[in-house]
C-alpha cells in the first residue's frame, strides 16, 4: 500500500467516524442545522464516492446513474439549507417543485456538458450554507468557551480548505499531505460540531430544569398560602373561643369547639405533610446543621405524643440518658421521630407498649422504635417507604394519614440527614423501626458565622 493509499484510508476512516457519531447525535437532539450539516456531509461524501465509481465504471455501464443520485442528494440538501436559513418550513408543494427543479437543473447542466466540478456546486453550497450558519451562531452567541474554543475557526477554515485539499490529492506525489489535512479537518470540524450540539443541548436542559423548579416553587408557595389561610382562621378562631377570649363557654359549647379545634389540627397536620412531601419532591427542602442533642429531641417527641398515646392507652417507654450530640437538622430529625412515634401509636393495640432506644453504633447514632402491634408482612415491608403506600390495616382501620409520612421520613433521613431508615417486623410480633444518623463534628465555617 502506498503512503497516499494509507492516508486516503485514514481519511475515509475519519469521515466514517465523524459521520457515524454525527448521525447518532443528529437523530437524538433537536438541532435543525446540525441535521442539515450531517445530511450535506453525507451528500458530499456520497458524491465523491460515486464520482470515483463513475470514472471506473460509467463507460462500461453506459448510463450515469451515479451522477443522477448525486444531483438528487445535493439538491435536497441545498433546499434544506435554504429552509434552515429562513427558519421556515416551506409549503410541501413548493418544496417538491423546487426539488424537481434542482434535480433537473443538475442533470441538465451535466447533459449540457458542464464539468462535474461545476455540477456539484449545489452540494458544495449546501455544506457551505450549513457552515456559514454555524459560524454565525458561534460568533453571535459566543457559546464556545474554554475547551471548545479550538473549534470556532473550523467551519470557516474548511470553506477555504476544500478547494485546496482534494485537487492536491489527485495524482500528486504529495497527495498524502492533502489527505492528512483533510482528515484533520474532518475530525476537528466534525467533533467541534458534535461538542457544540451537545453543549447547547445541556444548556437547554439546564434552563428547562431551572424553569421547572421555579414553577414548582411558585406552585408550592401559592398552594401553601391558599390551604393554610382558611386553616389558620379556623384554628385561631377555635383557639380564641377555647381560651375564653370571647367569654366563658358552656360545657357543651366547649365540647363542640374542641371538635372544631381537633379536626382543624388534623387538617393542618395533613396539609403540612402534603406540602412537606411536595417540597421534598421539588428538592426545595433545605437542611441546616445545628448542634443537636438527639436524646433531648427524642424526649421532646415522646412528650408531645404522650397525650395521643394516652388517648389510645398506649404506653411509651423511653429512658433518657446523657446527651448524645451531633450536628444535624434538628427540626427535620424531630419530624422523623415524631412520624415514627405517631405511626407506632396509631398501629398499637389498646394497652400496647412502645419502646424507644437510643444507642451509639460506631460513627452513628441509632434510634429504635419498637412496638408490639400487629407487625408488617414481608410484602408490605418492601413497599412501606414508597409514597401513598398504606398497609392493608391502614385501610381497614381509621388511622388517618396521607400515606406520605414514611416516604417523607425516608427522603429526609437519606437525602438530608445522610443516614438510613429501615424496618424489621414479623406478623403478630410487632415492628421495629430503625433510624441511624452519623455523628458529625461542627464544620469549621459554621462557628465562623456562615449561616
Amino acid at each position, binding site marked *: 500500500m502506498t503512503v497516499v493509499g494509507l492516508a486516503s484510508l485514514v481519511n475515509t476512516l475519519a469521515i466514517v467516524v465523524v459521520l457515524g457519531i454525527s448521525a447518532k447525535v443528529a437523530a437524538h437532539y433537536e438541532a435543525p442545522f446540525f441535521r442539515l450539516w450531517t445530511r450535506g456531509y453525507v451528500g458530499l461524501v456520497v458524491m465523491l464516492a460515486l464520482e470515483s465509481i463513475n470514472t471506473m465504471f460509467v463507460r462500461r455501464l453506459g448510463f450515469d446513474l451515479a451522477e443522477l443520485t448525486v444531483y438528487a442528494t445535493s439538491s435536497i440538501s441545498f433546499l434544506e439549507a435554504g429552509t434552515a436559513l429562513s427558519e421556515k418550513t416551506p409549503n410541501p408543494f413548493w418544496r417538491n417543485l423546487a426539488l424537481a427543479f434542482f434535480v433537473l437543473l443538475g442533470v441538465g447542466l451535466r447533459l449540457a456538458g458542464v464539468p462535474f466540478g461545476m455540477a456539484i456546486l449545489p452540494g458544495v453550497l449546501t455544506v457551505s450554507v450549513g457552515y456559514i450558519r454555524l459560524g454565525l451562531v458561534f460568533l453571535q452567541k459566543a457559546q464556545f468557551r474554554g475547551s471548545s474554543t479550538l473549534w470556532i475557526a473550523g467551519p470557516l477554515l474548511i470553506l477555504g480548505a476544500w478547494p485546496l485539499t482534494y485537487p492536491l490529492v489527485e495524482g500528486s506525489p504529495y497527495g498524502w499531505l492533502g489527505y492528512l489535512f483533510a482528515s484533520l479537518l474532518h475530525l476537528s470540524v466534525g467533533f467541534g460540531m458534535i461538542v457544540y450540539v451537545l453543549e447547547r443541548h445541556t444548556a437547554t436542559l439546564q434552563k428547562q430544569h431551572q424553569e421547572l423548579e421555579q414553577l414548582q416553587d411558585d406552585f408550592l408557595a401559592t398552594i401553601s398560602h391558599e390551604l*393554610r*389561610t382558611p386553616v389558620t*382562621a379556623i384554628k*385561631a378562631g377555635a383557639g*380564641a373561643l377555647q381560651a375564653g*377570649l*370571647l367569654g366563658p363557654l358552656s360545657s357543651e359549647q366547649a365540647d363542640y369547639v374542641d371538635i372544631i379545634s381537633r379536626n382543624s389540627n388534623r387538617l393542618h397536620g395533613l396539609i403540612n405533610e402534603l406540602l412537606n412531601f411536595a417540597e421534598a419532591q421539588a428538592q426545595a427542602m433545605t437542611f441546616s446543621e445545628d448542634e443537636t442533642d438527639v436524646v433531648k429531641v427524642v424526649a421532646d417527641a415522646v412528650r408531645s405524643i404522650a397525650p395521643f398515646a394516652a388517648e389510645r392507652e398506649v404506653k411509651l417507654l423511653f429512658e433518657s440518658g446523657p446527651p448524645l450530640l451531633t450536628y444535624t437538622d434538628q427540626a427535620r430529625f424531630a419530624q422523623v421521630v415524631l412520624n415514627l412515634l405517631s405511626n407506632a401509636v396509631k398501629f398499637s393495640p389498646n394497652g400496647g407498649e412502645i419502646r424507644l432506644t437510643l444507642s451509639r453504633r460506631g460513627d452513628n447514632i441509632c434510634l429504635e422504635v419498637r412496638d408490639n402491634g400487629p407487625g408488617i408482612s414481608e410484602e408490605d415491608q418492601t413497599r412501606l417507604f414508597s409514597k401513598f403506600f398504606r398497609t392493608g390495616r391502614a385501610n381497614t382501620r381509621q388511622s388517618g394519614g396521607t400515606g406520605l409520612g414514611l416516604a417523607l421520613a425516608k427522603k429526609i433521613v437519606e437525602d438530608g440527614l445522610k443516614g438510613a431508615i429501615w424496618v424489621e417486623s414479623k406478623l403478630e410480633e410487632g415492628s421495629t423501626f430503625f433510624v441511624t444518623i452519623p455523628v458529625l463534628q461542627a464544620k469549621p465555617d459554621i462557628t465562623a458565622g456562615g449561616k
Partner: protein
Amino acid sequence: MSGLPLRVLLVDDERDIRRIVARCLTVLAKMEVVEAGSCAEALACVTSFVPDLIVLDVMMPDQDGPATMAQLRALPPLARVPVIFLTAKCRQSDVDALVSLGAIGVIAKPFDPVALASQVTDLLARANSRISSTNMPTRGEPMK
C-alpha cells in the same frame, strides 16, 4: 409595659384572621389595634395615627408584606417602627429573608391565638433591648 397601651397597625387581607389577631392583641396584650386590609388602607391609616408596632401579613394581593413595609417605612414618622410579619411561608430561608429586610421577627401561620400575644410582646421586648446594644436585626421565633 406601663402607661398608654401600645398602638398596633395590623395589615392582613384576610378579614377573619385580622379580627382574630386584633382580638388576641387587644384582650391578651392590652394593645390598641388599628386594622387595614391592604397596603393602600394602611397608608390611609397612618395619616392620622402613628403606630408603635406594625404587624404585617406577607402574602397579599397588589402590594405584598415586604412592599407594604417599604412604603410605610418610607414615611419619616414610621421609619423606625418595628415590624413583625405573619406568614404561612415559614421555611427557614423565607424567615431569614424577611428578617434581613428589617423585621424584628416572624410569626408563623397558623398561630396559636393565646401564644400570639406573648410572642408579639416578647419580640418587641427583645428588639427594644437590642437597640441599645446593636442595630443588627436577628431572627424572631418561628413556630412549627
